[in-house]
């Protein structure tokens, strides 16, 4: 049994609501093996193409740049919640 809830229903609802065509998913290292299951669920339940972020996912501060250029219209990051950056310095 999986220890953590991957909340796939929330991901699917957001994809449908936003009518996303290209979705990039990002997972922390411990959850990267779930990419197969998540990709399967999304492609089965929606018509979105799934791109999997290969690199780091140190936190919600670590969102990849330049995805717009590739046509990604929804980015889903697992394992973190909203990051509140401090404006000027730490």
């Amino acid at each position, binding site marked *: *049994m*999986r*220890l*953590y*809830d*991957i*909340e796939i229903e*929330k*991901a699917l609802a*957001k994809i449908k609501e*936003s009518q*996303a065509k290209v979705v990039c998913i990002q997972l922390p290292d411990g*959850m990267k093996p779930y990419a197969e299951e998540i990709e399967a669920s999304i492609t089965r339940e929606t018509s979105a193409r799934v791109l999997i972020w290969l*690199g*780091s996912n*140190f*936190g*919600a*501060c*670590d*969102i990849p*740049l330049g*995805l*717009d250029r590739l046509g*990604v*219209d*929804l*980015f*889903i*990051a*697992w*394992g*973190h*919640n*909203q*990051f*509140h*950056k*401090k404006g*000027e*310095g*730490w």
Partner: protein
Amino acid sequence: MNVLFLEAPYRGEIELCQATLDYLKKKKYKTVALYASVQFCPTLEKVKEQLQKLNIKYITSQPDRTHVSSQLLGCDNYHSSLNLAEKELQQIGCYLYVGDGKFHPLALVYAQKDSSAIKEIVSDDPLGKKMIIMDQNDIKIILRRYRGSLLKFLQAHKVGVISTIKPGQEQLRPSFSLERKFPDKKFYYFLDDTISFSQLENFNFIDVWINTACPRIGFDDQEKFQRGVLNLNDAFHAEEILSQDSILNKA
């Protein structure tokens, strides 16, 4: 581009393991500061009940960069980030962290580097059902190196300032203030996405590095910087930090 964060919460109920309960009782702590990783924040009720049964009061806060109360991020590794009042800091006997791994609770050790005495971190792993205690001994070597970097910075002529282009971490503009504070030093500004440690030595004219990306890099990655590294906010107060009666200076 829309962004959705999914916390991936823990699916079961969590409670403090027997070793943690016994330890808290043995140490006769009256008040603890309670934090957890985001996966465990929604399921801390049982933990709170256990503390109540032991007559231990818990206090908590919402640290600077977090989204919910009690959540701890690895980057909230400066005391002020925790947003605990001075009175609360004096009141607590120890920090109690619930979660697996050492990365997050270590932030609570670093957060006390400028304090004169440390409050230990009792870290309870609800998955492995085990407890570990963390204190200054876990970061002694890192703090020695860090102190060395502070000293080096004060004497340095050519300083490399590293900024990441990751929007969540980027602090380029605040780093420009270094020029006003230290007019005798020459600052060179470097950009990267994820810091390429292997590239540092190619810029062999740099005396010491300043990190402005994730504040954990300045500590956890010390050994990857042959010339030493310190965090931006500490660079501004280097002299003051080195003159304090602190864990850092006693390491």
